């Protein structure tokens, strides 16, 4: 198996603090409205309490990335050495093919700069021996960087957790730990 770096998103630990999402904007200064990493609150069918469980999502750096396949100018490239799908926005011709093709919605449509763009796993930081901004920036240690190998991950680590769409042909590299629910003791009335 070729080396594949991946995000491990631990929803059990995620506190919905949005530090990861803003750590990305702190590093790249995307325009207002342009977001590479976002928090997806789990829907009621997947977690019973609204806005209380999240998946921190950016590019999944798929094994078979559709963006690489559809990009006519080679702006999306999967690196041989670690499987990171790097996007070079200076090559982008704003054909929007990646934006339309990626079922996970990873490429963002930058209307202002007229280009597609997405998370490249902080490839320059990685090359400098640093962690991606979101990984280092998570105060709860709920996003970590892992290397996918032949070795099987523990059962509680999932590729397709509840509430995360399954697109097997892409083989997304992101792995998840699902959120848990506390035991509840609830009074109905406060007054």
């Amino acid at each position, binding site marked *: 198996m070729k080396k594949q770096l991946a995000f491990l998103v631990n929803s059990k630990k995620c506190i919905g603090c949005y530090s990861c999402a803003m750590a990305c904007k702190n590093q790249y200064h995307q325009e207002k409205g342009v977001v590479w990493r976002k928090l997806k609150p789990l829907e009621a069918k997947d977690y019973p309490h609204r806005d209380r469980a999240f998946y921190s999502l950016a590019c999944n750096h798929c094994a078979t990335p559709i963006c690489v396949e559809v990009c006519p100018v080679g702006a999306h490239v999967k690196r041989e050495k670690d499987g990171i799908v790097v996007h070079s*926005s200076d090559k982008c011709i704003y054909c929007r093919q990646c934006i339309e093709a990626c079922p996970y919605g990873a490429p963002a449509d930058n209307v202002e700069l007229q280009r597609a763009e997405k998370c490249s796993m902080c490839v320059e930081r990685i090359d400098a021996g640093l962690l991606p901004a979101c990984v280092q920036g998570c105060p709860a240690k709920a996003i970590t960087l892992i290397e996918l190998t032949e070795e099987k991950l523990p059962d509680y680590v999932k590729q397709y957790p509840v509430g995360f769409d399954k697109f097997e042909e892409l083989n997304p590299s992101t792995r998840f730990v699902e959120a848990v629910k506390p035991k509840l003791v609830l009074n109905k009335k406060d007054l």
Partner: protein
Amino acid sequence: MKKDLLKTGGICPLSRRSFLKSAAAAGILSSLPAGILQAAEWERTHYEGDYETFRNACPRNCYDTCSIKSYVKDGVLRFVEGAKESTFTGGALCVKGFSYPRRVYSPDRIKYPMKQIGRGTGNWKRISWDEALTEISNKILEIKKKDGSLLGMALDKYSGNFGITHYGVEGMMSSLGYTTRFVGTPCWPAGIDAQNFDMGNMWCNDPEDIVKAKYIIIWGGNPAWNSVHSMKFVYEAQERGAKVVVIDPIMTQTAAKADLYIRIKTSEDGSLALGMARHILDKKLYSKEFTTKHSKGFDEFAAYLKKNVTVEWAAEKSGVPANVIRQIAEEFASASPATIWAGYGLQRHTNGGVNVRAIDAVVAMTGNIGIEGGGARYGHLHTWGFNYNAMVQKQPEGSVGYLGKDKIKSEFHGPEGEAQAAYSDRTININKIAESILTTNEPPIRLLWVACKNPFGQDFDRNKLKKAFDKLEMVVTVDQFFNETVQNSDIVLPCTTLFEEYTVNVSYWHYWIGLNEKAIPEQYEAKSDLQIAAMLSKKMNELEAGSCTFPQITDTKVWMEKEFNDGIHKLFGIESWEDLKNGPRKAQLPSSASWNEMKFGTPSGKYEFSSDLAAEYGHTKLPEYKAPRKAYDKFRVLTPHTQFALHSQFNNIDIMRDFNPEPFVYINPAAAAAKGIKDGETVKVVNKTGSVTLKARVTDIVAEDVLVLYEAWFGGKTDFNIQELVDDESSDMGTFKTGAPGVALHDQFAGIEKA
């Protein structure tokens, strides 16, 4: 072919900055207008390496007080990160901290001193610093002449910037004469007094030692949003086998991470704690050693419990079933160490202080005070022993002041100045600003100076506040953004961000100290609070020699250096402040547990279940049950903190809207159905104080008769402000240590209807 492309991996194309870089190389940078390095520095960037780095420290009113490492290139702040040297900050910041580069280069920043022609008109005119200071100085001199004193000048300042040198604003006031000061604190004084009555000080364990706890109750606090760095220690305790229980009227994000979440009736924390205490007493699960050797009044407390409290009574009052009360009481008493983190929300009530005392009592009677991993954790000021050099300034000779015995109290430091002067400042409860301005005469408050505070964003009964401001002859506000207080001011002075000055910061929660260096030049014409004080002093003395004693030092580094002393050096194991350039340092403590020597700061030197001092301040000696404030409307209104803002700061930053686009009122599905309110519909929340109109978000995180609206000023095009719904009712405690009681912020009520 693809392989070749891989090598470059460039994320960002040529930018305006690349132009600047070549401009710098060509040596033409100095000939460019100054604005070019400031106006649009929030532009696309990527990790380049070879940065100049600086130490900064977040000065916001927050548990975490993060040590920050700032990355600068070409005099521009590129990005920030948490200092890795601090095991508390651990390389990470929060969503607010990571928004700092945008805040520095926000197009919305106030760039120059400005004057509003007609308060509230929005007709702002740029003026020079000289014009602004001349106008203010003339007003000060006019007041002195008219009233024979400067008591007509008042300061409203609190927690907008906790950098130690920012107490220079208080110093500036003293350097002008005896003035009127708003004293006290809105946030946490009831709990401070409670812990002082019980233990003789507010002194919590090192939060990092919570990993040693076997049982953790987080009570009325939401660290998942408000102390994000503490969560990793809570998780580690969980991983080591600890049980985590969250008690809160709201199912907070912290509650979602607990093993057990208990939704208590708001402000009934006392009944629940007393019920737990009664059960612990009955089961003889209390610590005989602690209660006999280290405490005073345990027998009276036990007698009170036996006479007045049963578990069933506590269940009835608190809404927590009796079997659950028994279960958590037994589990807590049987685990060692066990700890309770008493959040600040829990004491923002008319019975908040005494409720904290009841919670302290549960921790104390089980022998969990003074041990590592244990403790009744609330906060501490153990590391705040600076010189307050900037704050302590002498009044000009011949100054006339208030002939009372007012002494300015603050939780952070001792009384200002030791002099036994005949005169003093006139002090007024900070939580009653509107009422005080309206009713204070002889002399009335004529000139109000606002710094590090946004009263229209954070104070209570805003309609009354508007009337109060109308009575003022001049309002000067020092700020970074055109908020609602600025709208109600005559002159606004632009102030620097933390990256544009030197200071030093410590926390009221963790035990680290962080240096704050000037990483970039002052932006536009912004000045720090200290520079403003120095410039005002210069102008005052020009107009009337000897009218201001404030040193005319404008180098914030000089001021920062003057705050250090041997005590601070020793506590943090440093030779001088310069050691902090290598990173934040942690206080060297003999134990991570507070009160580890069992020598309490109370009059008896013991833990006081029965406190005579509490009685002196008008409270019961024992932590007796006190009923909550009576509801004055159908729903309880809770207005806690969101993760996106610190009081009225950060919500207004445009990129924060990417993740927090608009405010909501959170309502239970049953209540929404009964009112015919659908999710996302616009509703009006109304009470005796005012009203707000916003969208409803239907959720089971609250009980059927509770509404939640997260604070605070939202900025931008919305005029949303939850303070429309909050009156100025006082909490029970606070006067002992901070000079005034706090505010019963969470004892508010309202009705809700479709808009």
